[in-house]
């Protein structure tokens, strides 16, 4: 658990995505590892810049989809062969071609739900409180038209005064301290 008091990090504000990406690349190059960018829309270059390349959402989706497929196909087989065998026009009890369709739908259903809820869970949401919302300029801009770089206090390189000076060299619009 991170400390619940003191400084969460230092937040630098930028006006354009290009400025943010350059600053993030520089910070990463200078050895910062506990850092994050905040943008009003997906900026892939910024994620690359802070070294975030891959995520687990596809894997979760695949597992979910396969589970849906297996669950429905097994359910259909069990019902039609064992639990409630019905003679429908002389077709075999194990009519696997007909079973494909509900199993196909459930593959998509489970995969889709896994993708959505997996993404939300990996993002640590819902998180209605976050220290960043304490920053005076964050809520005005982060979801509208401003681009932020946050160097977090958990980074071993972090020092309130030194880091502030360092961030100023990246030409931000402003640098503010974020409290827990």
């Amino acid at each position: 658990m991170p400390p619940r008091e003191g400084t969460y990090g230092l937040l630098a504000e930028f006006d354009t995505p290009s400025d943010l990406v350059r600053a993030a690349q520089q910070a990463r190059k200078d050895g910062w590892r506990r850092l994050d960018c905040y943008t009003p829309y997906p900026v892939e270059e910024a994620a690359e810049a802070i070294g975030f390349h891959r995520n687990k959402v596809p894997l979760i989706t695949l597992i979910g989809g396969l589970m849906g497929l297996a669950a429905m196909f097994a359910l259909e087989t069990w019902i039609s062969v064992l639990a409630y065998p019905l003679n429908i026009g002389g077709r075999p009890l194990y009519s696997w071609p007909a079973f494909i369709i509900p199993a196909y739908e459930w593959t998509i259903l489970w995969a889709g739900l896994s993708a959505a809820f997996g993404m939300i869970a990996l993002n640590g949401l819902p998180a209605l409180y976050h220290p960043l919302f304490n920053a005076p300029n964050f809520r005005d801009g982060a979801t509208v038209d401003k681009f932020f770089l946050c160097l977090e206090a958990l980074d071993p390189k972090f020092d309130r005064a030194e880091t502030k000076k360092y961030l100023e060299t990246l030409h931000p619009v402003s640098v503010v301290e974020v409290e827990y």
Partner: protein
Amino acid sequence: MATSEVEKRDPGVDPKTGEFRVVGLSQTFKSVTDEITRIVLTPNTPLGWFAILSVAGALATVLLTAVCWLFLKGVGIWAITQPVAWGFAIINFVWWIGIGHAGTLISAILLLFKQGWRNAISRFAEAMTIFAVVCAGMFPLIHVGRPWVAYWMLPLPFTMTVWPQFRSPLLWDVFAVSTYATISVVFWYVGMIPDLGTFRDRSESKLAKYVYGMFSLGWRGSVRHWMRYETASLLLAGLATPLVLSVHTVISFDFAVAVLPGWHTTIFPPYFVAGAIYSGFAMVLTLAIPLRKAYHLEDLVTERHIDNMGKVMLATGFIVAYGYGMEVFMAWYSASHWEAFMMWNRMFGPMGWSYGVLVLCNLAIPLTTLWVRKLRTNIAFMFFISIVVNVGMWFERFVIVVTSLYRDFLPSSWGTYRATKWDYMTYVGTLGLFTFLFLLFVRFLPMIPMNEIKMLLPQAKIKPKEAVGAGD
């Protein structure tokens, strides 16, 4: 398909490609946000909104009345009987589901094809999908006769140990439509989370802050979150694409698996899917044209969008035309007496007028005029065409359901079909319900995805080589 930066000449047309711009010139991150948030985050609701809402609400009440009476009296109040056992309920079910399909097409398939122009219309097309599925899903439930035991359709462990029959297309429908409804809602909601975050940050009232804050799940726009979000959106789009194709395919199986002439045909799945997209795009136009006018969104839903939707309608319209042609051809080529009679009866029998309406509305009017770019960019004309196609596609389902059923194999069992006032009330009522839900959506939720529009702006291009601090 991003807009390219060029000097201003004709404001609507990009001189490099000769195409219409997707986003109007002079839009910025801020102006996009303002333009979309001001529709929702204002205490002043336009009077027109209340006027239309009350009309739609009144119609929804008509639906409620019709359904209450139906529950009291049973499906006998509808015109369904032998030989036409599937009447308005199934026509409306197929029509509404079809309308929903264009929403998924725009939000999912066009996303996979990287068609940036779809961003502006994707959100309300998805909303349209959900409300159309709400209207559609109701029909089979109230059509079963005993809606209070509709849960028997699900594989649930009852004390009677009765289980569903998985070889029937009607049961496949249950899974197809319920999956479609769920995935559409999830896709729609996931897409809205960041925009709800914008609303949370921009709203003045405490209640709005609280409610949008809850529903935005505390979204703060971290790029790590955005990347997972983008992956999930792409995956959902990739999943929704085969889903939407399968849903109307399964619905067409309801017909195609039967042995009835006019239903028992292999062309049904592709022809149903194409027809669904055809009518769905028409409905998107029917909604988009008044909306962009009422809320002054001409800069975000441009002529380019209208033009492109016209092109999609032209293409899918021709697939539908091919389907009609193939049905006629097969009636002759099969050398089946019943097939040939069905087709003759469909065209020239006592209900031949409905086939005439279908040909006029789905083929004659749109497929001759949509070739012309001047007409495709004429907003009033496109609105007219959209209504025509909606009517035509309703009649397509009418033709399929009624004219195949009312004169089948034995002349002694022939009958006719005349809808009762309860049929009409239920149908008109769903139009009211749909409009009612859509108006609520427009008033309280972001109808245009802000974050997706921002990605299309020229300012969003990253220019790494410029001097640090230079403005874009």
